C-alpha cells in the first residue's frame, strides 16, 4: 500500500527550537520527514489531553510528543506530566480498540540532536506500518 501518514508532532521549545529557524528545505536537509507537522509549545507539560485527542479528531494517523529528558526537564516536571498524558491517551486508544502505538512520548536532549530526527523516523515507520487512522 502506498500510504504517507499524517503525523503531528508536539514538541517543546527546548527540544525543537532550532527547527523553527529552518524552512522546509532545511528540515529536509536534516532528513526530517515532510509528512510530520511540528507544533511547538512552550513546555510539553502544557499539552492537554484534549489537544492530543483533537489531533486524532483532525485526521492525524499518528501523534507524538518530544520533550526534555525525564529528570532534567527545563521546567522540572513538564515532560513527566506530558508522558503521563500521552499514557492516558494510549490507554484510551486501547479502550477504543485502536493501536496505542499511534501515540508516543519521546524524551530527547535539549537542542536539535540526532535523537530528534531518529524519533521522527521511528514514528514514521510505526505509523506507516499501522496504516491509516481508523477514525
Amino acid at each position: 500500500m502506498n500510504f504517507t501518514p499524517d503525523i503531528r508532532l508536539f514538541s517543546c521549545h527546548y527540544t525543537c527550537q532550532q527547527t523553527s529557524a529552518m524552512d522546509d528545505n532545511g528540515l529536509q536537509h536534516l532528513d526530517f520527514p515532510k509528512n510530520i507537522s511540528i507544533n511547538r509549545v512552550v513546555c510539553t507539560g502544557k499539552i492537554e489531553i484534549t489537544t492530543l485527542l483533537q489531533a486524532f479528531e483532525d485526521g492525524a494517523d499518528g501523534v507524538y510528543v518530544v520533550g526534555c529528558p525525564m529528570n532534567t526537564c527545563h521546567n522540572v516536571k513538564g515532560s513527566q506530566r506530558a508522558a503521563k498524558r500521552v499514557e492516558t491517551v494510549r490507554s484510551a486508544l486501547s479502550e477504543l480498540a485502536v493501536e496505542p502505538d499511534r501515540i508516543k512520548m519521546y524524551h530527547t536532549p535539549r537542542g536539535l540532536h540526532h535523537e530528534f530526527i531518529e524519533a521522527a523516523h521511528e514514528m514514521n515507520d510505526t505509523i506507516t506500518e499501522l496504516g491509516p487512522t481508523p477514525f
Partner: protein
Amino acid sequence: MIVAERKPLAEIIDMVKDHKKILVLACRGCVTVCSAGGEREADILASLIRLGLKKEGKQAEVATGSLVRQCDKEYIDGIDQWKGQYDAIVSTACGVGVNFIANLRDGDHVYPALNTTFFGGSAEQGVWREQCAGCGNCVLHLTGGLCPVARCAKSLFNGPCGGSVKGSCEINSDVPCVWQNIYDRMGTLDRQKELSVSQPIRDWSVGGHGGPRKQVRDDLTV
C-alpha cells in the same frame, strides 16, 4: 468528597450510540476535585465519544456544558440553557447528579459517565481512599476518629478479627487493618482503656438497610 471514576469507554459509547446530539454535562462539585467529572474530564470524554462513534461509522454532535452542582434543583434548572441542543445527556456527575436529572427532567435521556465509588479523600496526589460509608450513626468519637465501618473490611465494632497481621488486613496486605490503627491511635491519645467497652448490636436501618433514607429539616422548610 464523593469519589468516582470514568466508566469504560465501550460502555459509555454503547449507551449513546443511537443518539445524534449528545451533551456531556460536567459537575463542578466533588467530581471536579477528584478529577473524574469536571469540565476538563468532560472535554476529554466528549472527544473520546466523538472518536469512538466515528470509528463505528456513526455521526453525532457531542458538546459539553457544566453545572455548579448536579445535586440541587436550582442548578439542574440550568440545563434549559441547552434546550433543543441535545437528545441525550451524559452526566459526569456522581450517581446523585444522574438521579437528579432523571427525577427533574421528564423525557430527557440521561446516562452515567462515571462509576461512583466512595466517600473519601486524597492525602497524596492522585490517590483517594475511602473514609466514611455514610452509616447514619457515627461512632468516630469511640474510635479516635478512624472509621471501622468504611475502613474495616468486615465493619467490625469491637476490635479486630483474627486475620489482622502485623498491622495489615487479612483481605490484602496492602490494606491497613483499621482496628490496629484505632488501637494504636487510642494508645497515643491515652484512651486505650475505652476500647474494652463492648459496643451493642447495631441498628443498621439508619445505614441504608431500612430503605432509602430521607432527611427533613423543619427549620429550613418554608
